[in-house]
């Protein structure tokens, strides 16, 4: 039952219980002894009185009548404040100091009174009893008496009032109770204070422990209520220290892990056992925009790839044993973005199996691979076409033996044309190789871009004339001074103009314009051709890259012009790009390139 009370109540209650017992038992014992003592004393007193009455009665002249005996009894009784009774052997009362003489004869037979019976047996008898005659508690003492005069042989008895004794005893008890209550009250108050005193350090200890519990691991218990509490306090302190250490270690590890994860160039996604995303790293947020709400969602809700979702489901459901090797797949997100994804099973102890998904961006790798493949395919294709012609015509001349000199001459001219084309291509390839090898930081002299443009246009003039295409020159009249190699700049203009003339509709115009920036000037070459498909635009500056469907129409181009332009411009520290269709138009394309301006 005590278990339900607080420590303080239990302490107080046990204190009070002990106090109560300690005060009550001795008082009861003391009271008992005292009352026995007092009774024995009164009894002895009564016997003494009895003896003196006996002695007085034997010294007195023999009484003449029972009346005079009654008188004597009364006088003596009044004197001694006791009751004196003479009882005959047959139990008849002869005289009694407290009863009127006339009524003595009517009194009860006293033969059965215990003190009288005892007196006959042992010469002296005592008893304490309530007297019906007097209506009081009395102590009786009786002794045998021989016959003398009117006094028959019988018993003389005195009764001393016991109530006097009782009154004293009652007084004593009252005092005792008062003292007990007083002591009890005082000690209750004292014990309460004492317990409070004990409680304060315990409370302090509790507060310290609570502070540790709520995360303040630097808190220590320094003062404790007693030696018994010292192991407890030390245990709590050590526990706090250990927790502090553990938390430091965990935090450190977490920070390290976070730094590693965020420092990785691969995107990482951690899945829990139900296949929902637990955490992601910084690199993944570069791959997948809007990743802030990813936690708690499924991969498909974040990455738009059903293959990834299926693979994750496989690993998490345990269908795929990824312990031996991770599940690998390639996923295509937006056009041109390819990721190599590895999924590893993560064996958790309690939470079941999760998974780690690692995204490796291989878009650039894939692109370069494609460029290389295309280059090899294109260069062989480009060289084979003229070679086939040369071979065919050469064989024809050989079989015909040069009989028809006119047709032989014509064939030889075709062979020469194709050889020239091949030689041009090889020249272009060599030039490209040289451009690629050259460092970018070459010192260029100031040249006038208008000169370069004019000589470039002159080179294309015959072709332009054939197709009736005119040049619209929007450059300033006194030209644009740029820091460049004149010959190379001319080649850039020539290549771009050639393309514009070749692809533009007959009777159209080619527009040249420029735009001055703080450091660079941007030249624009705009044609009215069919434009370049969006998916081809990033690749037209690659070697041999030709927009597929136009390849058949213009077999005389080497497919290296734009690649050479790009390299020249890059060597000048500029950049080249295309817009197709140009802003605000539905067809045609504009090539832009930048060249450093001459600072005045």
């Amino acid at each position, binding site marked *: 039952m005590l278990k339900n009370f607080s420590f303080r109540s239990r302490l107080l209650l046990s204190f009070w219980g002990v106090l109560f017992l300690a005060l009550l038992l001795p008082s009861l014992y003391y009271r008992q002894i005292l009352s026995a003592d007092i009774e024995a004393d009164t009894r002895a007193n009564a016997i003494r009185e009895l003896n003196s009455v006996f002695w007085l009665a034997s010294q007195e002249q023999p009484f003449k009548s029972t009346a005079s005996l009654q008188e004597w009894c009364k006088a003596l009784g009044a004197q001694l404040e006791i009751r004196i009774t003479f009882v005959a052997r047959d139990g008849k009362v002869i005289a009694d100091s407290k009863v009127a003489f006339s009524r003595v004869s009517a009194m009860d037979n006293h033969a059965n009174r215990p003190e009288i019976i005892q007196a006959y047996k042992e010469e002296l008898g005592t008893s304490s009893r309530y007297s019906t005659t007097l209506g009081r508690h009395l102590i009786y003492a009786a002794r045998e008496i021989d016959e003398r005069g009117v006094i028959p042989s019988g018993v003389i008895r005195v009764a001393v009032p016991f109530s006097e004794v009782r009154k004293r005893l009652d007084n004593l008890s009252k005092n005792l109770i008062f003292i007990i209550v007083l002591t009890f009250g005082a000690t209750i108050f004292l014990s309460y204070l004492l317990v409070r005193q004990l409680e304060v350090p315990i409370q302090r200890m509790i507060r310290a422990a609570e502070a540790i519990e709520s995360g303040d691991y630097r808190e220590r218990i320094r003062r404790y209520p007693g030696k018994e509490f010292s192991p407890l306090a030390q245990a709590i302190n050590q526990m706090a220290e250990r927790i502090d250490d553990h938390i430091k270690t965990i935090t450190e590890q977490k920070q390290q892990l976070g730094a590693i994860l965020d420092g990785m160039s691969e995107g990482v996604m951690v899945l829990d056992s139900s296949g929902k995303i637990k955490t992601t790293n910084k690199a993944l947020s570069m791959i997948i925009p809007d990743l802030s709400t990813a936690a708690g969602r499924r991969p498909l809700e974040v990455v*738009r790839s*059903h293959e990834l*979702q299926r693979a994750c489901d496989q690993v998490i459901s345990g269908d795929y044993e990824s312990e031996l090797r991770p599940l690998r797949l390639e996923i295509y997100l937006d*056009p041109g973005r390819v990721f190599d994804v590895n999924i590893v099973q993560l064996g958790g102890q309690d939470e079941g199996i999760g998974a780690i998904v690692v995204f490796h961006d291989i878009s650039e790798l894939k692109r370069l691979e494609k460029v290389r493949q295309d280059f090899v395919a294109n260069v062989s294709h480009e060289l084979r076409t003229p070679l086939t012609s040369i071979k065919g015509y050469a064989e024809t001349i050989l079989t015909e033996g040069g009989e028809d000199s006119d047709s032989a001459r014509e064939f030889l001219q075709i062979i020469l044309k194709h050889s020239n084309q091949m030689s041009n291509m090889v020249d272009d390839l060599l030039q490209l190789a040289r451009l690629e090898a050259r460092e970018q930081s070459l010192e260029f002299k100031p040249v006038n871009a208008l000169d370069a443009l004019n000589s470039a246009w002159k080179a294309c003039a015959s072709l332009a004339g054939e197709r009736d295409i005119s040049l619209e020159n929007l450059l300033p009249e006194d030209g644009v001074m740029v820091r460049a190699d004149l010959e190379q700049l001319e080649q850039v203009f020539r290549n771009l103009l050639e393309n514009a003339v070749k692809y533009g509709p007959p009777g159209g115009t080619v527009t040249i314009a420029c735009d001055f920036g703080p450091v660079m000037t941007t030249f624009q070459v705009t044609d009215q051709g069919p*434009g370049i*498909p*969006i998916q081809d635009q990033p690749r037209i500056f690659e070697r041999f890259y030709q927009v597929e*469907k136009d390849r058949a129409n213009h077999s005389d181009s080497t497919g290296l012009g734009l690649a050479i332009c790009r390299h020249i411009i890059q060597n000048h520290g500029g950049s080249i790009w295309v817009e197709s269709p140009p802003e605000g138009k*539905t067809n045609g394309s504009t090539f832009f390139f930048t060249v450093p301006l001459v600072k005045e």
Partner: protein
Amino acid sequence: MEIRRRFSQDLEDLKIEVLRMGALAERAVDKALQALFERNSDIAEEVIEGDQEIDLLEVEIDKRCLRLLALDQPMARDLRFIIGCMRVSINLERIADQAVNIAERALYLNQRPALPHQPLMEQLATISVDMLKRATSAFNNGKTSQASEVCQMDDRADELNLKILRHFIDYMIGEVQSVDRAVNTIIISRCLERCADLATNVAEAVVFIVEGVEIKHYCKP
């Protein structure tokens, strides 16, 4: 409580299935366009073969929805979500069918010489794919703002479709021998425009799920 948890798990699974279908449909349209623009017949074949998976998925989603409706008697948003998923999956299936149509036309066109490059087709393709992506993304995030963007983009798709039609009619008058190719291209343009319409339907279903408002044919909540 157990039943409730199972129910919400089922709803989550349903969403994943619909998203899976969305990803497949997007992939189908992307690939069909790739087959067309890059003149790659292998990819076109892949699209035609892949359509079966989307059809099966639609049946599966239908079953799931019916079971949820019958067994759990959903209320309010849950009910709208299930109905909305049915609508979205029907439209996604039709989009995938349009992708198959485009792939079939591409197979034909790839055997013939190419027509002159037409930037309008690319613009229409870009806008249709973009609308589809936005619509599935709106379904994924429950964003009605994104859904109404899709609705507004539909006008642009219609306009482009008309422009392409006019362009090819003019072209056919001049070049009789390329009539068949031009007609096929017009069909593709029409398919793309249908894709855009169906993406709009998906977006409308999203608004229905999130806000409980029917915006069919108005494009405004």
